[in-house]
């Protein structure tokens, strides 16, 4: 276990969060009736699986010292357009292919804007996200909520599928986690992402294909957003594009950061994502059981996060001499 912890840096914040997670889990297990049941744990995992999948996409980009603010817009619009195509009686294969092409194009656009046009990632992806939402909403969709048209049983069956009583979301999330772990740890391009995130100029000077890798990381995150969206739509048979105005994007960023993947890039990994996702999942599930209203849930969640940030800030103070300029 300690070997795991020593592999990558920033272990103190991660430890803090991990401890907090366990503490919270134990507290809820003892205090809350019905928390520690198989059904509830599965429900808990299921409720954070989507958040977790998005967090993997965001995490990969953040490790490469980027940020993807277009994630939720891609999720909403790609799937809404996909459902809309189904509604216009396109075969599911064609609809999927068209949506996929769109998703890859948007991811590549993010990458090109940041890698080739050298725009700050925050603004490039903010602009792309706004644009994608606007384009989809005004040109392809007539309504905020797009319903899955009747007659796609395969798709809905996928949403309800279970593998040994584990819901499909959780299975997919687990697969993605393993995939991301293997990719980041053992593949050439996965390692490149760390190197680029750690020091872009050094990576470039060392001859790495810096720009293509940055494009790749945004394409991967866009694809993960699409996967998350598909699972979401398979479950609830619809897609509400107003989700872009929700706090989902912020939650994703917070999961990534609370787990200990620093926004300055080059650090962290799948383990951090698991810890972050679990903390948020336990918190949300416990509060729902306690019947705490959404308003107070937000307040509590944000306060916990702020506390974690402060603890991290005190434990790992930033140094004026080694801080990178423009690193916000």
């Amino acid at each position, binding site marked *: 276990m300690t070997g795991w912890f020593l592999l990558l840096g920033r272990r103190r914040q991660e430890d803090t969060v991990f401890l907090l997670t366990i503490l919270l889990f134990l507290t809820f297990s003892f205090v809350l009736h019905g928390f520690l049941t198989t059904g509830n744990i599965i429900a808990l995992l299921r409720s954070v699986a989507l958040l977790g999948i998005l967090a993997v996409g965001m995490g990969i980009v953040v490790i490469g010292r980027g940020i993807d603010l277009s994630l939720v817009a891609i999720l909403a619009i790609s799937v809404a357009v996909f459902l809309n195509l189904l509604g216009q009686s396109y075969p599911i294969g064609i609809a999927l292919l068209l949506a996929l092409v769109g998703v890859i194009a948007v991811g590549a656009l993010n990458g090109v*804007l940041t890698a080739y*046009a*050298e*725009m*700050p990632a*925050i*603004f*490039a992806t*903010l*602009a*792309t*996200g*706004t*644009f*994608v*939402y*606007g*384009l*989809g*909403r*005004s*040109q392809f*969709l*007539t309504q*905020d909520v797009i319903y899955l048209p009747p007659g796609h049983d395969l798709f809905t069956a996928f949403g309800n599928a279970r593998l040994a009583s584990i819901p499909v979301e959780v299975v997919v999330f687990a697969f993605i986690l393993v995939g991301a772990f293997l990719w980041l740890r053992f593949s050439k391009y996965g390692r490149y992402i760390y190197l680029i995130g750690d020091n872009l100029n050094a990576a470039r000077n060392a001859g790495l294909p810096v720009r293509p890798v940055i494009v790749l990381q945004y394409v991967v995150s866009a694809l993960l957003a699409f996967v998350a969206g598909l699972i979401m739509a398979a479950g609830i048979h619809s897609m509400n594009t107003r989700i872009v*105005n929700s*706090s989902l994007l*912020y939650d994703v*960023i*917070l999961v990534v*950061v609370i787990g200990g993947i620093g*926004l300055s890039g080059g650090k962290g990994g799948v383990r951090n994502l698991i810890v972050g996702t679990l903390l948020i999942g336990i918190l949300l599930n416990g509060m729902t059981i306690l019947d705490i209203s959404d*308003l*107070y849930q*937000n*307040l509590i*969640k*944000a*306060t916990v*996060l*702020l506390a974690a*940030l*402060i603890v*991290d*800030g*005190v434990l790992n*103070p*930033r140094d*004026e*001499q080694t*801080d990178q*300029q*423009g*690193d*916000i």
Partner: protein
Amino acid sequence: MKLSESLARLRYGLFPDHLVGEVLSKRWTDNAIPLVFLLATVIGVGTAIPDFFSLASLADASRQLGEFAIVVMGLTIVMLGGGIDLSVGATFALSAFASVAVIYIMGGPIWLALLAALATGAVVGAANGVLIGYLRLRAFLTTLVTFTILHAIYSILVVNFSAQVQLADVQTPIWDFIGDGGVAGFPISLIVAVLVAILAHVFISRSRLGWHVLAVGGSRRSAFNAGISVRRTVFMTYMISGLCSGLAGFLIGARLSGVGPGTGAGLEILALTAGVVGGNSLGGGRGSIAKGLMGAVIVLILTNGLIRLGFTSGTNQMVLGVVLALAVFLDVRWLKNRSKVLAKVYVAPVYSALPSTPSAEPDSGSPFALNDRLAETEFIGLGEIEGPEDVILDEDDNLYCGTRNGEVVRFLAPDYKQWEVFAHTGGFPLGLAFDRAGALTVCVGAMGLYSVARDRTVTRLSAETNRTPFSILDDARLRDPNDCDIAPDGRIFFTDSTTRYDAHDWALDSVESRPTGRLLVYDPRNGRTRTVLRGMSYLNGVCMAHDGQSLFLAESWACRVHRYWFDGPKAGRLDCVIAAMPGYPDNINRASDGGYWMAWLGMRTPSYDLALRKPGMRKRMTRRLPQDDWLFPNINTGGVVKFDENGAITEVLGNLGGHSHPMVTSMREHKGALYVGGILNNRIGRYRLEGADPSWTGMRSYWGEGR
């Protein structure tokens, strides 16, 4: 003169090519892109919606603009300091609630509502500031979390108290006036915003704290190392942002007479877009209040215009996304390429025909004929110093020179084997002169005129002169203070060789050959500096004549020497005493026989003389060739000449092979020896003068026998 040359002279003399580069070099040209955006938006929307810019419509739009612009200005200041504030929307809403609560729930007075709103903003700003400034958490995340917290608090408050606010029947004419009224057609919020804008602009561009903000944003580490309290500065920017959001919240509270769950939603993204579209760079240091304002106007016109045009949901976002991407893209490209473009177009050559001159060929029999006498110099400090542009000796025979490292170095008499750093001035110390009290006056390249007292304390005497009206470049600044000399009454005359180039780019000034050199005088009695003469071609050496009423001035690129009377019966007269020389003159200093030594930093060549008459060719050269391939004046051979009161050449010291002193920029006679300095040399030369007065020193010549 040939017709083509006359045309070239007129073309390059009258057409102000140099203004392009000068305009580009100004920071305010960064505003060009947002300004073009702004105009395009105004024209586009104005054309699409004919009555969009009608008076009534404008008044309403500007009411909203006022609130929005205040928020954007707060955010701009945070961005200038290198941060980001995503909590502005929630702070705005919470402050609006605070003021509304004071009015409708407590029944309090307006001033208390304003105070409550500002206090709310201040508390939020202080919280952000402590977290980001003092605890140094990451701005993006921290403000994201404070945004979530504030928004949750706001929603809870709205749920619990909105009924009370809605049922309250409070009539407050002043409150309504702030929300709906205006002065002379201008809504209150706009007037407030203008006041805030003026304040913020003055704060950022004219106050010490504002400069600290820019310094921290520009380079946090350097600011920290320079002793600026980075933490406090960052804290302050968030405080200001919080106050701005608070003020704007008060105004929206007054306008809508209440608050709802949607108040301030999405404001942070709009404000951020405005800040960036205006051209403020993320990461800080570059930007201005004006840019923030332009961004605010662009974003508001666009969003309102698109809603007004009745487009479906999403069109707005689509256009905003494109605009944001385009603005950031152009901004990034502009920042990256401006210096390249500037380097290409800045040099704007003019026509310059040097008069023909007697030859400098050895044994040609001309008075300028070079010889190899300087080859006999002995070296002082060989390899230990870099760039002794000027040399001088004090009454104890110690030898001083400036170096490229920003130091004044002293070689100790009598053998000059030992040396020490006499004083550190920074910049590149060039011309030197001792005043009556024995303090060393130094022209420091790129900085100004400085004085080093005997106890080695460095004092700045002058760094600016009076600015020429309507000049684009700030010519009040001293760019290339080159040589100085001191009149008997203590006034210091010094030259500023060019207003167009920094000191280290002096060779570019030759390629351009635009006469912008100046003679300045610093008067120690009132501490003021005044421009005496201007429009000289790289005005370089200056030397007090033996009469104490006139100066000799060397114009390097024109190869001329002038005599200027600043005092006495001929005061104000400027005579050309040497009209043509085969070398480019540098410093001039007194000689023991009543004449003057003058350094030649290089020799004219026929090819370069021809190039100077072909400004078009030089312009193409600077744009199409890399700088290494440019034609520059020859500085591989120089020398020293002596002339008398009338400008007649009496002696020439050259170094034909260039092994000892290829380039000479200064020389001092002292007790029968000539000390030779050169700006590109790594040594000082000493040359024994045959038959010179072995007791003569500069100090005595200037300040009398007592020294």
